[in-house]
C-alpha cells in the first residue's frame, strides 16, 4: 500500500469539494450586500419563535433629533440559528434596536438568545456601535447580533 498517502489526499480533495458544493446556506438572505437605505433584507417569513425583546423606542439618552431612519440588517446565520436586527437611527445616534427575525435550531439556543438579546441591545446603545462585549455563554449569538447591527449601520453610513 505504497500509494495509500496519495489515495488519502485524492479522497480528501474530493470530499472537501463535495461538501463545499453541497453546502447551501439556510436562507438566501444571509450575506446580503448593503442595498438601499431602507432595504428590507430579512426574509418575509414571520418568525415562529417570538423573542423580540427590547422593542420600541430607545431607552437610552434621548437627545436625538431629526427624522428616524430604520434599516434591518441582514439575517446572520450563526450555526445555531439565525437572527436579524432592525436598527433605528435618529440624527447621529442609534435609538432603537429590535429583533424582527430570530430562528433557533433547538430550545437551548432559544433560551440563550432570549437571555442574551436584551443585554446585547443595551450594550449597543451604550457603546453607540458594535464595539461591545459578547455575552458569556452566548458567543455565537452575540457575534451574529453585532454583525447584523454593523451591516445595518454600514448601510446607513453611520459612524
Amino acid at each position, binding site marked *: *500500500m505504497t500509494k495509500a498517502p496519495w489515495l488519502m489526499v485524492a479522497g480528501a480533495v474530493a470530499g472537501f469539494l463535495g461538501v463545499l458544493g453541497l453546502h447551501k446556506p439556510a436562507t438566501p438572505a444571509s450575506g446580503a450586500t448593503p442595498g438601499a437605505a431602507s432595504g428590507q433584507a430579512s426574509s418575509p417569513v414571520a418568525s415562529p419563535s417570538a423573542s423580540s425583546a427590547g422593542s420600541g423606542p430607545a431607552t437610552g439618552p434621548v437627545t436625538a433629533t431629526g427624522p428616524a431612519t430604520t434599516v434591518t440588517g441582514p439575517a446572520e446565520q450563526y*450555526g445555531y440559528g439565525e437572527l436579524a436586527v432592525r436598527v433605528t437611527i435618529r440624527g447621529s445616534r442609534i435609538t432603537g434596536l429590535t429583533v424582527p427575525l430570530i430562528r433557533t435550531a433547538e430550545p437551548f439556543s432559544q433560551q440563550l438568545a432570549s437571555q442574551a438579546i436584551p443585554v446585547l441591545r443595551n450594550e449597543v446603545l451604550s457603546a453607540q456601535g458594535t464595539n461591545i462585549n459578547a455575552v458569556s455563554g452566548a458567543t455565537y449569538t452575540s457575534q451574529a447580533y453585532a454583525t447584523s447591527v454593523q451591516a445595518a449601520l454600514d448601510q446607513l453610513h453611520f459612524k
Partner: protein
Amino acid sequence: MSAAQVGFGSPQPPAGAGRKRQAPRAVPAPRPHPRLAGAAVVLAGAGLGAVAALAITGESARQLAVPGGLLTFAGSLTGMVGTYLALVMVLLVSRIPLIERVAGQDGLVRWHRALAPWPISLIAAHALLLTLGYAEAARSGFWHELGVLLNRYPDMPTATAALGIMCLIGVISVRAVRLRLPRETWWLIHLWIYLALAISFAHVIVLGPAFVGHPLTRLVWSLCWAGTAGLVLCYRFGLPVLRSLRHRLTVAEVRAEGPGVVSVILAGRHLDRLAVSGGQFFLWRFLTPGMWWQAHPYSMSALPQPPYLRLTVKGRGDHSRALARLRPGTKVAIEGPYGAFTTYAQQRPKALLVAGGIGVTALRSLLEDLPRGSAPVVVLRATRAEDLVLAPEVRELVRHRRGKIHELTGPRDQAAIDPVSLPRLVPDLQDRDVYVSGPEGFVTDVVEVARALGVPHESIHHEAFAL
C-alpha cells in the same frame, strides 16, 4: 495420532509444477483485494476532506472578523479534524479483513503509532482555541471562560474527561514512559480510549455548529460512529472469540528445537476450516495463570496439519520464555490469522526467502505455499550453526521445489548479506520477489540491500519480529 508422531516435518509438496497447490490441508486464507482496500483509503480521505469542509462552511467571513472569531473557527476546525482522525485510529487497529489482508496487522499498527500524535494534539488544541476564542469574545479571562464552558454547556464535563483520557494515553505511549510501565498497565489504560470516544460523542452533536440545525450531517456523523463501533465489536472482539471457541485449541506438546527455541504444538477442532496462508501469524493467548491477560504475536512455523497447529518461538522476553514451561492441556485463545506476508503478495515469478535467526519460522510456513518447481532460493542467516532451527525441514521443502538453500553462519563481518554477497548467491535477483523475516535490525538491513540492488518496493515483503 499423537503430536510426536505427526512430526511436522516436510508435508507433501503441492502437486503440479507451477499450478496452484491442491494439497489436502487447511483452506488458504482468502485472497486480498488491493483495489478494494485502496477504495477504502480514498473513502477515508474523503471523510477527512468532508469534515474540514463542514467546519469551514459553518463559518462566514464576517464571523471571522469579530473578536474571538478566528480563534473560534480554528477551534472548530481542529475539533472536527482531530475527532475524525481519532476514528481513523480506531479503524486502523480494528482488524477489518479488507484492509488487514492488504496491509498486514503489523503494518496497520505501525500506521496507528505514526498517526497517534495528530488526533491528540488537534483535540487538545481544539479545547484551548475554543476557550481562548470565547474568552476574547466575552472579554473575560481564560479561566473564567473555562468555568462557563464547563458549567453552562451540556455534555462538556464528559468531553473534558475524554480529553484527559486521550492525553493520558498519549503520555504513557511516549517511548520513555512506556518502557517503564508494566505492559498490562499500559494496555489497560490504552483501552480507555473506547470509553473516551463514547463519552465525548454527545458534546459534538449537541454543540457543534456544523450539526445543530443540520439533521443530515447529524445522521451521517452518527452512522459513521455506529459503523465504527460495529466494526470494532465484530472484527476486533467478536470474530477472534468465535474462532477460539470454534477451534478449541489446547497445548499438545512443547518441543525443544535449539538453544532457547521451543515449538509449541497445539491440537484443535475443525482446523481443516481454519483459513490461513503460509507466512501469517496469530496473536496467541495462553489461558494459564500469569499469561492469560496477554496476547502475543508469533508466526505459525508450519501450515496446519489437522488436528495440529505449530508455532516456534525464541525465548527473548518473559512471555516467550514462559512458553517452554507450558503444560499440555492448557487452553489457547487465538486472534487472527493476520499478516500480508504471504504468496498472495508475490509480484514476480520466483522468490528469494531470507531469514535471520528465528525469522525462519515465517518462511518455513511460507515455503509450503510455494508450488513444486518454483525454484525458490532460501538464505538462512544465524550467528551459530545450532541457531539454525528447523533447518532440516527447510532443506527438504526447498529440495522438493527444486530450489537452493544457503546457510550463512558466523559473525557479521564474515557472513554478511550486502550488495556484493547477495548477487553472488542469487544471480537472477531481477526475477524474484524478496521475502525477509527476522529481528528488526536484520530486516531493515536486508531490505536496504535489496533496494540498493534495484528490487522495487512492491516486490519486497518483510516481517520484523519486535521484542
